[in-house]
């Protein structure tokens, strides 16, 4: 590499790695941020739905117990969590008199250590009065707590003109991304000042700081959230730590001791945040030559026992992209949200994408079969053409850039599509069950904070403050010795944000990345942040990088002014810093003293929803083509992936090594949803997937080799042209694998996850059964 080549774009290994490899990472449970903390254990519901009477006397008398926080205390000290819609079932930090899912917090026992707390938690006596549990979201649709219908174009007329109308129901089950580190919270209530300081492996502040503060009845500045330097993965799931920030905050407040709590795996599986389950009837109209002219969705969204913030966001995150990668002029959707007696939903990698694309991309595969077209050809006839970019979808997204046909060609070439077809034909000729699947999806990133207001009608929205945009802040400071420190507000959990920011700042200030210290710890009292700050919707490379670069550019301008003032444009950074700090009176006229800059950045295209309910739901839009071949074992129903190719256009790659890491990680989650993972509740609402023995996550032998290709259409709406890349394969892989399995076994009704018994049951066993 030449010395002048930018650092951005290089596959630089990470600065994060050394401490992690040496076991010197600082995860929250490794730390004691306040002295003399007591340990919490949470008493949880054993039943899916019941009235409860709680007796804590025995627990209070147990050795080492400091006290117990009950539902009555929670009710007295806090308010329900605000949510995007009023479901009529308010949620507090614990159950109040009624439990609504297995694992719901009932009380918190605080003791001198975790062992004693868990001993005492077993002594809390809960008397249950069982109630009927609602477990089938479709059967519960009549009692939906949210029901909105949207139409763009004339769906009914187009459907009437279509030569082929398909109608099929698709179900995406509830799964959870299960980071290897569970939730952790330390809460320290300051009674004198009425202030709560909490440390958590949270990924906000995001909108959820405000939700937590509202539940606690605290002014925003009185709820200080901090995160440790390291967090053991999240994939969205840790956004719901906020509910436990409130719970442990209340325990600390009530019992007047600092409280620490680290969730165990059984708690995590029962009561963290599973994705929503969605049942969607898709109706799609095609012309005889394969043009998709209308699509209509009827979606029933299972959010679990409560509508917990930011829900019902899963339903609306993809709203601008209802037509996927295709030029479909007419699209309609009915969105219903139902409550069931299962764990509440929350962010999980892909967030709404898997739910949307499973229906759309399965429909495309089924249509190809009916129309007698190769699925790649059907896709090609419908993909948005490159010369239509930037492209406004009927529901309002502005696709910023891309050459979808070129990506398809690249994927077909990388997969040796003709060769793959031959291979599959040969396997079939040998009597084996083999098939090919394709998925073409748009991967949106950088969510519009206003999309959630689509849950309201335009008239309702008119009565409130408009919501829009997605802004991020950052600061870059140079100390008296020339040391550079960046503060970030994206609270990463392993994505390598610190390394990428060091690359960006190095290019702007003319130093090496190794000379830049990037602090990614959140502290709502000192980091420049906005209501959008945090890790979700793959917003780092677009928005946070924009803020970091903007701050560095401000500083660069000041450094240049100082150099010009001194008459030496080669003055070292250290010298400039010394002058700025030690001789502020000698600074150039018009310049502020100091050598530090704060900047905020937001993409320019994220308006609030308009009166026709159109929304630019995301700023950047990557594109992915996945192609895979599978073989299904006739005797067992086992699906084996023979080959998997994914081609991404995520704009400019800031660090290709890390970008591929995100692709491989997203693919593993997508494949897990395709073949392995779902939460199962029995007919009484007991969680059957309550341990990692029962909730089957794939390990190394289960993940097939992935061949990755990249094209690059830089985004015109992000600072450096980058788009999100970490979620796409969670959206594409379930559909792609399902399409391949459907092709292999000749059935349209394949369901996720494609486990051996379910696939086996779909096979024609030649016995009439």
């Amino acid at each position, binding site marked *: 590499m030449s010395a002048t080549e930018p650092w951005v774009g290089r596959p630089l290994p990470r600065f994060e*790695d050394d401490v992690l490899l040496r*076991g010197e990472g600082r*995860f929250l449970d490794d730390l004691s941020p306040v002295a003399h903390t007591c340990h919490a254990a949470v008493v949880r519901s054993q039943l899916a739905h019941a009235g409860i009477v709680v007796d804590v006397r025995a627990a209070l008398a147990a050795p080492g117990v400091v006290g117990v926080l009950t539902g009555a205390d929670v009710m007295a000290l806090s308010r329900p969590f605000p949510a995007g819609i009023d479901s009529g079932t308010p949620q507090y930090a614990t159950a109040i008199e009624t439990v609504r899912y297995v694992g719901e917090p009932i009380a918190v026992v605080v003791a001198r250590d975790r062992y004693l707390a868990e001993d005492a938690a077993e002594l809390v006596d809960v008397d249950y009065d069982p109630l009927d549990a609602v477990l089938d979201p479709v059967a519960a649709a009549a009692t939906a707590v949210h029901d909105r219908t949207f139409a763009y174009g004339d769906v009914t007329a187009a459907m009437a003109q279509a030569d082929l109308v398909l109608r099929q129901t698709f179900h995406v089950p509830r799964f959870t991304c299960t980071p290897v580190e569970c939730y952790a919270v330390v809460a320290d209530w300051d009674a004198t000042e009425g202030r709560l300081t909490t440390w958590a492996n949270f990924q906000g502040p995001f909108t959820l700081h405000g939700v937590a503060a509202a539940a606690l009845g605290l002014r925003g500045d009185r709820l200080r959230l901090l995160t440790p330097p390291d967090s053991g993965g999240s994939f969205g799931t840790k956004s719901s730590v906020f509910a436990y920030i409130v719970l442990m905050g209340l325990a600390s407040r009530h019992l007047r001791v600092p409280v620490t709590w680290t969730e165990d795996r059984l708690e995590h599986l029962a009561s963290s945040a599973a994705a929503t389950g969605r049942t969607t009837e898709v109706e799609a109209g095609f012309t005889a030559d394969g043009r998709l002219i209308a699509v209509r969705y009827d979606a029933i969204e299972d959010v679990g026992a409560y509508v917990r913030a930011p829900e019902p966001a899963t339903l609306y995150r993809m709203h601008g992209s209802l037509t996927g990668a295709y030029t479909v002029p007419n699209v309609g959707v009915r969105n219903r949200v139902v409550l069931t007696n299962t764990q509440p939903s929350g962010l999980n990698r892909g967030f709404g994408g898997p739910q949307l694309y499973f229906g759309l991309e399965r429909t495309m595969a089924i249509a190809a079969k009916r129309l007698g077209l190769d699925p790649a050809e059907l896709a090609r006839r419908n993909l948005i053409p490159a010369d239509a970019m930037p492209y406004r979808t009927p529901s309002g997204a502005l696709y910023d850039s891309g050459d979808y046909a070129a990506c398809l060609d690249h994927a077909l070439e990388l997969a040796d599509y003709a060769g793959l077809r031959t291979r599959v034909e040969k396997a079939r000729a040998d009597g084996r069950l083999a098939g090919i699947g394709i998925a073409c999806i748009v991967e949106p990133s950088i969510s519009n904070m206003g999309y959630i207001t689509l849950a309201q009608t335009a008239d309702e929205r008119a009565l409130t403050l408009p919501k829009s945009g997605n802004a991020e802040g950052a600061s870059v400071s140079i100390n008296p010795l020339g040391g550079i420190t960046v503060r970030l507000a994206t609270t990463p959990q392993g994505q390598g944000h610190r390394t990428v920011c060091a690359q960006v700042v190095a290019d702007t200030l003319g130093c090496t990345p190794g000379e830049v210290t990037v602090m990614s710890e959140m502290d709502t009292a000192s980091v420049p942040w906005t209501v959008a700050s945090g890790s979700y919707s793959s917003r780092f490379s677009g928005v946070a990088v924009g803020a970091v670069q903007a701050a560095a550019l401000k500083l660069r301008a000041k450094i240049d002014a100082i150099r010009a003032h001194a008459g030496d444009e080669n003055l070292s950074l250290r010298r400039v810093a010394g002058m700025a700090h030690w001789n502020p009176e000698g600074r150039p006229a018009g310049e502020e003293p100091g050598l530090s800059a704060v900047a905020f950045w937001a993409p320019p295209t994220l308006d609030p929803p308009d009166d026709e309910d159109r929304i630019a739901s995301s700023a950047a839009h990557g594109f992915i083509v996945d192609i895979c071949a599978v073989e299904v074992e006739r005797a067992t129903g086992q699906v084996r992936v023979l080959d998997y190719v994914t081609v991404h256009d995520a704009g400019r790659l800031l660090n290709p090594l890390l970008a591929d890491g995100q692709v*491989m990680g997203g693919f593993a989650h997508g494949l897990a949803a395709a073949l392995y993972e779902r939460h199962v509740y029995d007919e009484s609402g007991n969680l059957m997937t309550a341990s990692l023995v029962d909730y089957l996550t794939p390990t190394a*032998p289960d993940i097939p080799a992935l061949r990755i290709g990249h094209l690059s259409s830089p985004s015109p709406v992000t600072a450096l042209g980058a788009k999100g890349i970490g979620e796409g394969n969670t959206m594409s892989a379930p559909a792609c694998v399902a399409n391949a399995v459907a092709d292999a076994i000749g059935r349209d009704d394949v369901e996720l996850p494609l486990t051996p018994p379910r696939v086996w049951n779909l096979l024609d066993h030649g016995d009439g059964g």
Partner: protein
Amino acid sequence: MTEITVTVNGQTVVEQVEPRLLLTDFLRHRLGLTGTHVGCEHGVCGACTVRLDGVAVRGCCLLAVQTDGSVVETVESLAGDGPLSPLQAAFKRHHALQCGFCTPGILIAAEDLLSRGHPSHEAIVDMLSGHLCRCTGYTPIVAAIEEARDAPALARAEEPAG
């Protein structure tokens, strides 16, 4: 309380412990060796893997008292104060860690495997079936272990620029 004597990363420690204290809690919260992680406490995720008398074991499924008189090695022992070990350096080169939470357990298990000869690709993948990583998709982990097996010097030599 029971007195135990354990050699941890080369140092002999004598401690009074409750019989029910887990080895992971002993290492993390008594000795401050927080590099050993806890992801499930029921023997599935492998994050807690340490070497007990040279053999990779699950720290969460052992009590501290069971290690009395034994030698325990944790991730902190791999490089000590020196440069990254060849295996650690290979992990860095291959971007075989993201959040790094699974990493200590995998490093210990991989060191254990590599210390027993020249494992095949299949043997490495098979060993990894005892570990959960939710970030990387495993492929870079396999590549890193293979590189450390084949070319330990290369892995050590390649420190990143910048």
